């Protein structure tokens, strides 16, 4: 009897979506950890402090900004003040634990990137109650190669997204203050997390307005949530900035620091003749921004040239689905509203996409603010969440969904930044090696 119960307990465990989410998260985390030492620096840290930095520093993409900044912060200097300090503090912690090397710079960032996969799965489950959709959303995101690359290097984005997703999950679970506190950590990691906060609050405003008859009652209930989430977030952000500012003697008050951040980011405008990859090129498969080598080492063997290390920023099959997702969500939202149902899922995803992707259209085209394709990283989880919903349900469409997932995984394998030799050889035989 005891044995039977134990077997059924084991089976139940396997049916739990969280188990598979954890497996997926651990799997991706292990892949990320495995490639951390590539590239490994040939130059000592002291020679990798000031621009121009040599290839021997082994810094990938914007690590060239953050790692020298982190090293100076370790010496008590206040630098790179245009960005809040938490992501850099995580890099410092990593360096203190693992030393000033790629493990030190990237380990904690990498883990936060992997954790986002689990959190996205939980958000999907929270919104839909579907275990299948939870796993599909997490898988699409886990095998998004650009997101994988960006969250495997020492940049600000992975912790910002991880805290944003955790905050969103707590928000959906109505843990307002806790959600706000975690959002404060996201803001302390990267200020653009503010767009996520805006998306959550706008989503909730629509929800209140739909469910409550009188507009003033709806607003009153919304303000109750707004206060708890926003004030908690603001308190954490200001406290974090204050600690940084007072300990490194950077600014008189955290508000003055915020002023600098705001002014700096407002001043990043482009002029005629500058090459800017506008937001449509991030998602349009027919007019893509060029694939960007963040860090690439190529060799030639037997007349065949290939990359041994290839961190690229590029569109993925999932990114191509963005406009389909937007159109479909708008349509199903309309159907729900027509049938007197509140389109909760659609509104959540649409407000997120609007606040984290569509916002860059006016910013780039009207304000002429510099925009970069890697900004799309904050939107990818929601595309991964909404896309499976389109095809889920019917056999044929689900088959297409799995084919799409297969394409996403294939893309992931082809563009994986540090491939083992056997995989390179295999891809070379198929003429797929990059």
């Amino acid at each position: 009897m005891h044995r039977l119960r134990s077997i059924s307990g084991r089976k139940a465990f396997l049916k739990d979506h969280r188990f598979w989410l954890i497996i997926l998260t651990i799997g991706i985390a292990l892949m990320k950890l495995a490639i951390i030492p590539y590239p490994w620096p040939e130059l000592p840290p002291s020679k990798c402090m000031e621009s121009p930095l040599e290839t021997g520093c082994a810094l990938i993409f914007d690590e060239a900004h953050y790692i020298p900044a982190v090293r100076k912060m370790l010496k008590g200097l206040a630098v790179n003040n245009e960005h809040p300090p938490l992501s850099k503090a995580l890099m410092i912690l990593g360096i203190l634990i693992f030393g000033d090397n790629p493990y030190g710079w990237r380990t904690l960032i990498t883990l936060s990137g992997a954790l986002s996969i689990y959190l996205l799965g939980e958000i999907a489950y929270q919104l839909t109650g579907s275990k299948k959709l939870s796993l599909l959303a997490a898988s699409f995101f886990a095998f998004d190669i650009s997101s994988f690359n960006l969250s495997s290097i020492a940049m600000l984005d992975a912790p910002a997204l991880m805290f944003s997703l955790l905050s969103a999950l707590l928000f959906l679970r109505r843990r307002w203050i806790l959600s706000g506190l975690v959002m404060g950590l996201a803001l302390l990691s990267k200020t653009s997390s503010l767009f996520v906060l805006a998306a959550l609050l706008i989503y909730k405003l629509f929800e209140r307005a739909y469910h409550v008859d009188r507009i003033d009652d709806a607003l009153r209930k919304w303000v109750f949530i707004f206060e708890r989430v926003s004030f908690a977030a603001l308190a954490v952000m200001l406290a974090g900035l204050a600690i940084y500012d007072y300990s490194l003697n950077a600014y008189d008050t955290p508000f003055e620091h915020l002023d600098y951040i705001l002014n700096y980011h407002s001043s990043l405008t482009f002029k005629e003749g500058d090459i800017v990859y506008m937001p449509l090129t991030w998602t349009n498969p027919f007019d893509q921004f060029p694939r960007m080598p963040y860090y690439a080492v190529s060799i030639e063997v037997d007349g065949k040239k290939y990359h041994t290390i290839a961190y690229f920023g590029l569109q993925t099959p999932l990114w191509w689905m963005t406009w389909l997702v937007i159109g479909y969500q708008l349509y199903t939202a309309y159907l729900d509203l027509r049938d007197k149902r509140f389109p909760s899922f659609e509104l959540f995803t649409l407000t997120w996409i609007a606040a984290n992707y569509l916002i860059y259209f006016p910013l780039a085209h009207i304000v002429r603010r510099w925009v970069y394709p890697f900004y799309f990283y904050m939107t990818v989880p929601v595309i991964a969440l909404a896309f499976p919903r389109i095809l889920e349900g019917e056999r044929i469409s689900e088959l297409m969904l799995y084919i799409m997932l297969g394409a996403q995984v294939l893309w992931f394998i082809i563009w994986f930044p540090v491939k083992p030799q056997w995989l390179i050889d295999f891809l070379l035989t198929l003429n797929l090696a990059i």
Partner: protein
Amino acid sequence: MKRELIYSAAYPSFLLSYLIHHPGLRNRIYSDIVTFWFRPIAGRLKLPYIEAMFEYPPISGFLTYLAALIGGDIHGFYTAFSIIILIFYTILIESTYRIAAEKRVNEFLLIIFLALSPSMILYSVYNFDVIFSAILMSSLLLLKRRRSLSAILFGLAMLTKWANLIILPVALMLIEGWKNRIKYSMISLGSFISVNLILYLINPELMPETYLHHLEWGLENAWFIVFFPNNASWDTAKIFSFMLMGYGLLKVYLCKLGDLYEKSFMAYSVFLLTTYKFTPQMVVWILPFLALMNRIPWGYFMLEFANAGIILTWFDSPDPTRLGSLPQYLAILRAIILFYILVDVYLGLKRRRAHASA
């Protein structure tokens, strides 16, 4: 109490205000009115908004022009301006008295708040605030009885200092029916917009010089200068100010407590506590509402001390807008006390509702 007693206190108070700012005095206390004389619309009798710009809305400009036309020289201008203010001061007291009689408010409080307040003495013959308050209070007095006239007066108040725009949602909430609310909004906002539109068509410089001009000013007596001590960061301080104001006003509009006057007081207090430019004469706006709340808040005397102190120490401070100067310390003290009074009024209203439901 007979209204004669209120006037017998108010007029000497006004006379004192007239005297202390008089341009004939060597050690006079500063008044904006005297400086208006040196502006083209007064000193050179240029038509306001058409021939010369003025940073206050149309009624303020035309009254200044009228005072200059009557006055002839600086002393005459000052006296004519003071007489105009006196007329409106009388309207202010009369309107507040009538509202107080309806609300069964102790009229003695009108003497304290509208006649003996240091702010009233220092800042009545000073700027357009008494004129503005008088038109607004008469508008609120007529809100229930003669709604159309009230709406016109509301629009005229906006044409004097426009800050009563923040009271509009409070007033609208007390009007029954959407049709009536829309009509009230159309009349009040329409009168404000139509006058400005005519002037704008005559001279397109009106908008930047009259309204947008204030956006270029830095922080003045705002408590959050403690967060933004460096004036290079004041543009961000203004964004902070607008966000805080939006939130605070939304809270007041959504608050179910209080009547028209209590909610108006709360809206004005929020505005004054969150605006980046809280000049001391703006305290005149809240005095009638304080009187109508039928009690003297504990912090009132301290508020008056701080508010009067700002102008009395302003010109003896080398850099009065800088954090660390005496006027700014007084401004911070004033903000703390006003915030205390605001919270006290809110909690008082909550207690009153609890009593009523018990």
